[in-house]
């Protein structure tokens, strides 16, 4: 039984059914990062997917831009408890990028410029659930929000949407990434409130 805080609740925020438990609405776009924002030049940017055989599929910035671009309207939910509803992104579906990849592994480790990693099951990246996003609200993605390109996996807490993404390595096991080693949940479903271990 929770203890009651006398007189608390007068300033409560708007609530909607779109808000997962324990989240509050924000109209800002806060930043959560463990270190400095890396500066990534699109002239040198590269994205790769590496499988268990060592096979690598690589895309340059121009090659990524030449792929079919999708518009994604979605809500995003940060583990630090803010949610932002109705955001608009543009990017390339992971289904497009994985179309030529052959793997029998079920898990992925996503790597970023700057050394950040996060782990996701492959099935959470496929079937229209994940993108490499390069635009937010009609503008090129700002570096502090992960530009030039970040992973976008909006059905999970937003730390899974790795900023400054550079590649995906297939794993046979669900090995923990950076935040997952430092206390955050291995899967991170906001509707189940999977915040911490």
């Amino acid at each position, binding site marked *: 039984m*929770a*203890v009651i*805080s006398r*007189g608390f609740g007068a300033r409560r925020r708007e609530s909607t059914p779109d808000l997962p438990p324990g989240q509050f609405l924000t109209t*800002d776009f806060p930043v959560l990062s463990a270190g400095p924002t890396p500066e990534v030049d699109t002239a040198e940017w590269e994205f790769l997917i590496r499988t268990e055989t060592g096979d690598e599929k690589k895309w340059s910035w121009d090659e990524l831009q030449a792929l079919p671009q999708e518009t994604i309207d979605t809500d995003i939910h940060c583990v630090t408890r*803010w949610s932002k509803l109705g955001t608009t992104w543009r990017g390339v579906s992971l289904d497009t990028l994985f179309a030529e990849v052959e793997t029998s592994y079920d898990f992925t480790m996503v790597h970023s410029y700057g*050394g950040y990693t996060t782990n996701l099951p492959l099935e959470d990246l496929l079937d229209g659930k994940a993108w490499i996003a390069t635009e937010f609200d009609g503008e090129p993605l700002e570096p*502090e929000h992960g530009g030039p390109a970040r992973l976008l996996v909006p059905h999970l807490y937003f730390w899974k949407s790795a900023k400054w993404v550079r590649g995906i390595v297939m794993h046979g096991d669900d090995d923990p990434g950076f935040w997952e080693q*430092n*206390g955050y949940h291995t899967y991170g479903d906001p509707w189940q409130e999977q915040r911490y271990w």
Partner: protein
Amino acid sequence: MVTRADWFVGTVTEAAMLTRTGRRLLVDVPGWPGNRPGQHLDLRLTAEDGYQAVRSYSIASFGHGQAVELAVDELPDGEVSPYLVEDVIVGDQLEVRGPLGGFFVWDAEQTEPVQLIAGGSGIVPLVAMARAHHAAASAAPFRLLYSVRTPADAYFADELLSLVDASFALDWVYTRETPSGWPRPAGRVTRELLAETSLSASDAPTVYVCGPTGFVEATAKALVALGHDPQRIRTERFGGS
């Protein structure tokens, strides 16, 4: 077994304003597992009709005790912080969960030089590190750069001054108003100022930066430009609402 998912009931035992908008709370939390310097916790408030709100706060205290110290800055459009700053009184109960976070921490086993850089209430996790450094009589060189709007906006000023010794240096930056006779005009942290008032990249310090997003972004970028290894710069940001 105690897990991070458990809520502990805490009782406020001390409450005092630190600045015009910042308040220090000491909360007695039976069962609290202790925390490392720099960790944070989730704090939950429940209204009489069952409505709940949870926010994360850095912890100013460290170690094994069950007296958990917080320092909360009131956000003008906030929901939880105005309650903690204006309404809570000694004897009130609230709930906490944690400790949380395993990266933005300093442990006494670390022997390398450390540069702490705080903007405003971003001092809270860093004061825990400074206290731990002092309590351990650590010989690791520590230097704290604390950026505040005006002298009256500093948290823990007297305590921080009292920590200064051969292995702990303290530098101030005032962004709006300086003490009289201060050698530098008021202004934000810049690359030039960091070069003057923080450990050099050649000392290979671990750098902890905590503050509002804009402050942390600008500071971390300037540190990288000064040659600090990005892998040695740890940041914690707050911002938005």
